[in-house]
């Protein structure tokens, strides 16, 4: 099994940008979303998380945010309770020398079936995960699951510090897996895998292929199949 790389500084983990750093790009994303909407129909920002890639004078922010839209904009005629529509959006924002450019916006309603049946999942997905906020019994359970993981996948770590760090990453990942599970509309099951002790950034760097986002050279189009 591949051995995970050395621990990284906590602040370098993906999706863990400090709230202050997120503020400007998130406000810009919201402004872009609301552009052209009447005052009463503007969405409000819910939770947001993001990561940034910096190169030269530019920063590319990838944000995931929830936006709340209130369908009724006149409280005197609305039937109570007014249900809010929650949208899950991902934004890509380029910041070049303080000038923001929206490169991508992808919003969709959060599946109501999912949210109705599993309220906790939406709530747990939205806020930024605070590693210090795990309850006591969660830590105990996690330690036990982590020990099983270490045995199953034959993991060895260089030091106690690294083991502790990997446990923290593992615990966060279990929460992430739960969120992914809650937001999957198929039959997939998510949970412990051999990659469970890697941060999202490590996983992306080691196993994935960013070049695929580049434009590939066009080849001949295949002739379609008429008679299989």
């Amino acid at each position: 099994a591949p051995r995970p790389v050395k621990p990284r500084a906590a602040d370098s983990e993906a999706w863990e940008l400090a709230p202050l750093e997120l503020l400007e790009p998130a406000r810009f994303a919201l402004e872009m979303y609301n552009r052209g909407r009447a005052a009463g129909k503007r969405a409000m920002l819910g939770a947001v998380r993001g990561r940034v890639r910096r190169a030269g004078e530019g920063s590319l922010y990838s944000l995931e945010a929830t936006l709340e839209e209130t369908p009724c904009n006149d409280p005197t005629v609305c039937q109570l309770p007014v249900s809010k529509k929650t949208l899950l959006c991902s934004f890509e924002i380029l910041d070049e020398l303080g000038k923001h450019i929206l490169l991508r916006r992808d919003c969709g309603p959060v599946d109501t079936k999912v949210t109705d049946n599993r309220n906790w999942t939406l709530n747990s997905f939205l806020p930024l995960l605070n590693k210090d906020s795990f309850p006591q019994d969660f830590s105990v359970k996690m330690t036990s699951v982590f020990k099983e993981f270490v045995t199953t996948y034959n993991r060895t770590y260089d030091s106690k510090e690294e083991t502790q760090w990997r446990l923290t990453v593992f615990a966060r990942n279990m929460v992430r897996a739960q969120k992914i599970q809650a937001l999957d509309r198929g039959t997939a099951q998510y949970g412990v895998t051999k990659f469970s002790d890697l941060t999202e950034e490590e996983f992306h760097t080691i196993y994935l292929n960013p070049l695929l986002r580049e434009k590939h050279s066009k080849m001949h189009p295949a002739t379609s199949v008429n008679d299989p």
Partner: protein
Amino acid sequence: APPEWDWRKKGAVTKVKDQGMCGSCWAFSVTGNVEGQWFLKEGTLLSLSEQELLDCDKMDKACLGGLPSSAYMAIKSLGGLETEDDYKYLGHMEACNFSEEKVKVYINDSVDLSQNEQKLAAWLAKKGPISVAINAFGMQFYRHGIARPLRPLCSPWFIDHAVLIVGYGNRSDIPFWAIKNSWGTDWGEEGYYYLHRGSGACGVNTMATSAVVN
């Protein structure tokens, strides 16, 4: 397209491989496709070398990533692929050790396939496994079942993993693509990933390609 198809059952797919700690999925996706194309033309299933591509395909970036389209060009210009046994996988880039005499498989061309998933299914059933690229959202924790992440979370614009579609079908009325991954058999369903079919899930239809063997 027929209602279901599985090239594994027809002997066109080699065992699941493991790319290790290296972003070489593009090489595995392409060799998997060429293995299938060669099998369909010649009737022999050969396990082909990804390491040859890591070392000798100078258009791509070995463990830092690559594009199937340029890998096909590299295979063409090199003159073909050696087998896994002759040019073993190391999981990191080395000097190119390609030997023309050891080439077992060649390709003549490569093609872009339709973005229409019904047409892709028809193509697959007739012509063989397809190299595709997807957004790998959630795959870090995938264990089994048919994945269908919310579209905003698995946007077709964030393609970052190349894999091989080897079949399709329905499980309890949910249509799926059977996808051969290159993370070993101790990941997913014996190394396979099942992704929802027909909804453009995770951009599965955005970069479908194949080699052509005449």
